[in-house]
C-alpha cells in the first residue's frame, strides 16, 4: 500500500514529471513563467484541476462505458477549469488579469487528460487523487523553478507580484536582488522560456546519469525507467 504512494510520489515529482519528462502542457508552461508568482499560480490552478479531474474520473470509472470515456473526461476537465477560472476571477482578480487566457488553456494541457486516461480511469480513488496531487506538484515545481530563473535573470527580483496571489500584505515579500536599468530581455521573452526549460531538462539528465553511474559502480542493477511520452496540443 505505502509502496504505491511512494512510487506515485517518485513518478510525479521526478521519473515521470509532466513538465520535464512527459513534456506535456508546454504552452502555458512556457508562456506564463515570466515570474515566479505567475508560475506558482498557474501551477496551483493546474494541480487543483488535476486533483479534481482524477478524483472524479476514478469515481465514475465503473459506470462509464469505454466508447464514451474520452468525451466524458473532457467534460469533467473543462468544467473543473471553468469553475476554477470563475473562482480566480472572483477572489484573485489581479492574478486573473495577469494569467488571463492561460487559465482556459489548462483544458488543453495534455498532462490532465493523460493522467485521467492512463491512471485515474484504472485505479481506485485514493491512488488517483494522490497521483493527481503528485503530478500537479511536479508540474508546479518546474513552473516555479523556471519562473524564478527567468525573473532573477530578467528583472533582478524574486516574488514580485506576490500581492496578486496573497493579498496586499505580500507586497513586502518581493526581493530586489539587484537594480538594473536595462532588463535582460532574452530571459523575459519566450526564447528565455525555451532555453530555461532546456537547461532544466539537461540538469535532470545529468543528475540521472550520475545516479546511474554510481549505482553501476556499486555493481547494482540499473533501474529501468518507465516513461510515457506524448505530444502536446
Amino acid at each position, binding site marked *: 500500500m505505502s509502496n504505491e504512494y511512494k512510487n506515485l510520489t517518485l513518478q510525479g515529482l521526478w521519473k515521470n514529471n509532466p513538465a520535464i519528462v512527459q513534456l506535456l502542457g508546454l504552452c502555458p508552461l512556457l508562456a506564463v513563467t515570466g515570474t515566479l508568482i505567475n508560475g506558482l499560480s498557474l501551477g496551483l490552478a493546474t494541480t487543483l484541476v488535476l486533483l479534481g479531474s482524477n478524483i472524479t474520473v476514478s469515481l465514475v470509472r465503473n459506470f462509464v*462505458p469505454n466508447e464514451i470515456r474520452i*468525451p466524458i473526461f473532457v467534460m*469533467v476537465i473543462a*468544467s473543473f477549469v471553468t469553475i476554477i477560472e470563475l473562482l480566480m476571477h*472572483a477572489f484573485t482578480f489581479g492574478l486573473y488579469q495577469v494569467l488571463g487566457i492561460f487559465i482556459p488553456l489548462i483544458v488543453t494541457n495534455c498532462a490532465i487528460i493523460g493522467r485521467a486516461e492512463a491512471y485515474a480511469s484504472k485505479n481506485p480513488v485514493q491512488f488517483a487523487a494522490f497521483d493527481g496531487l503528485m503530478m500537479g506538484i511536479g508540474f508546479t515545481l518546474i513552473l516555479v523553478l523556471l519562473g524564478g530563473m527567468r525573473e532573477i535573470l530578467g528583472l533582478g527580483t524574486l516574488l514580485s507580484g506576490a500581492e496578486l496571489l496573497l493579498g496586499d500584505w505580500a507586497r513586502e515579500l518581493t526581493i530586489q536582488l539587484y537594480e538594473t536599468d536595462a532588463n535582460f*530581455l532574452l530571459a523575459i521573452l519566450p526564447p528565455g522560456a525555451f532555453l530555461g526549460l532546456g537547461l532544466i531538462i539537461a540538469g535532470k539528465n545529468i543528475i540521472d546519469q550520475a545516479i546511474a553511474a554510481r549505482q553501476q559502480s556499486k555493481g547494482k542493477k540499473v533501474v529501468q525507467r518507465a516513461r510515457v511520452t506524448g505530444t502536446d496540443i
Partner: protein
Amino acid sequence: MKKAMLRNGLILGGFALITTSLIALTFSFTHERIDAAKERQLLSTLNQVVDQSLHDNRLHLDCILVNSAALLGNKPQRVFRSRLGVNNTALIVETTAPDGYSGAINLVVAVDQLSTVLGARVVQHKETPGLGDKIELRVSDWILDFTGVRYEEALDHRWQVKKDGGQFDQFTGATITPRAVVNAVKNAAIYAQNNMQQLFSMPSNCAALSPDATTNAAAIEVISSE
C-alpha cells in the same frame, strides 16, 4: 446496438447536465463578486486620474458612449463625467492608440474644463516587457509626465516625443510605444476640448450596458489576436 447507443447517449447527457449545473452554480455564487471587482478596478483607475476632491458623483455610472474614429480609435469609447455639485469639473475619455509596437494600447485620459490633462493611465496593452511596458505606472512613472500639461493648438508641436522635437521623453530602445501614447493622449485632449459642453450635457447612457460589454469585447479581441 441501438440500446447501447441510447444508453451511452443518456450517460453523456447526464454528465453534461451535471457538469453544466455545477458551473452554473459556481457562476451564480461568484458573478456578483466578479462584477464588483471589475467595478472597483474601473473606479480605482478613474479615481487615479481625477482627484477625489474634484468630484462627488459616482464616476463609473455617469458616462456616455461616443464614436470618433479620427481621434479616439475606431471603436465606441466611454466618456466619464466628473462633477462637483452642480459644477462640471472634468471629462475622463477612454481612448485607443492603434499604433503601438504590438497592437492597440487602451488608455484613459482625464481633461479638465481648461483642456489641461489631469492624468492619463494605460488600461491595457501588449507592449514588449522591459521596453515598451514603461508606459505602465507599475513599471515606471513616465505616464505621469502628462499630468498638468495643457493642450493648446499653437503649441501642438510640443506634443511629441523629444526625438521628434516635442517635450515628452522616449525610452531607450523604444520610441514607437511612447510616440503612440503621446499621440493618443493629445487626440483625447483635442476631442475633449472640441466637444466639452456637449459631452457634459448629454444624458448618461452607458452605465447599464458597460463594464461588462466592453470588457467582454476586449477579451474577445485578445483571444482572436493571439
